[in-house]
């Protein structure tokens, strides 16, 4: 194996950071990042699913027959997603209400299935765990950053607390769907410029 465990972990934070480098999982990225709290909540839920499914699929990689691997992956992922959904309902109900349909939709998140197919199915458990943790953390950070920018500009708050004075006029466009596209595009552009050097 060419890469070390640490490399598998850190690649998710910059070189392959999901929404910007892999440009995967855009649906939840655009939809839930109206605020920091939602972004991080979604990121943590996805990270949990990613880690659990990566580890389990890696453990079972020799048991799962090639022909039905996708069905098996989906069964594993769907199970963990439902577990997350139930836990969130039990312990963070307001977050569950604001994320709504996007929690069950983690099942079809390309990142999760993508990592299972591209990495966990071919690698040992420890690298798979590192990969899941790295990609998940990268996803959480991206969602958190996107949520922070949109929340600060769009509603003038950070984590629900006002950051500007009374006279601040919220730039409402940023918390609407088009604002998500523009913000993501600009961040992608900045990352590409930084990455070139």
């Amino acid at each position: 194996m060419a890469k070390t465990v640490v490399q598998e972990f850190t690649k998710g934070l910059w070189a392959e950071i999901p929404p910007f480098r892999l440009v995967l999982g855009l649906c939840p990225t655009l939809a839930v990042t109206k605020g920091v709290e939602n972004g991080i909540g979604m990121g943590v839920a996805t990270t949990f699913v990613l880690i659990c499914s990566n580890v389990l699929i890696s453990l079972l990689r020799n048991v799962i027959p090639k022909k039905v691997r996708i069905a098996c992956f989906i069964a594993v992922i769907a199970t963990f997603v439902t577990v997350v959904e139930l836990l969130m309902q039990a312990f963070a109900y307001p977050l569950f209400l604001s994320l709504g349909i996007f929690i069950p939709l983690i099942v079809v998140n390309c990142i999760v299935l993508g990592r299972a197919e591209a990495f966990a199915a071919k690698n040992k458990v420890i690298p798979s765990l590192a990969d899941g943790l790295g990609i998940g953390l990268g996803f959480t950070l991206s969602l958190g950053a996107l949520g922070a920018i949109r929340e600060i500009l769009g509603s003038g708050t950070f984590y629900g607390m006002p950051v500007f004075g009374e006279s601040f006029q919220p730039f409402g466009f940023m918390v609407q769907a088009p604002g998500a596209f523009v913000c993501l595009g600009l961040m992608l552009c900045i990352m590409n410029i930084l990455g070139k050097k």
Partner: protein
Amino acid sequence: MRDMFKLFIVIVIFSVISGGVLAAVRDATKDRIEYQQLVFVKGPAINLIMEGCTNNPVQDRFKLEDQGKERDFFVGEFNGKKDVVAFETYGKGFGGDIGVITAINTETDKIVGVAVTTHSETPGVGARAKTDPDFRKQFNDQPITDVFKVKADGGQIDALSGATISSRGVSAAVVQAGEIYKRLKDELKKKMQASQG
């Protein structure tokens, strides 16, 4: 043929295990989820109509069966006496069922307050049934034994302008609450006296 059989077995085992895991998690979180839902979905409406009560109505709830259906009843304590009971009924609105919580004083058989919990009415039109205090306050202090109808149907309730169907739905829910109350009054009183002790 043998290959097919193996695929089949693997998928079945996967499904059985994930089904078992999900059932276990669901069982473990069921009570907590129910409580959270009551607090966050019905809690605001209950607090609205039970303003000034000295207990936590969601915590002091009990279940009673009515015509084969179990219902939650929330008890409110006023001036040291637990004599207000609130429960949810549904009326047909414009966009689906409207959930209405009706609070009744069991001493006087009069309505303490009415509030909408869940609905899918048109924002700004039928949705005012939830937000317009003047509309729901029409029910306050009316005897629960009355039949409530909007004025267009020859009744006493001023409908929200442009939202007769939603207003009719709320009235129907309150009427249904009155019917349930009549059927269960004795049992309710017994339960509430027991909790007083």
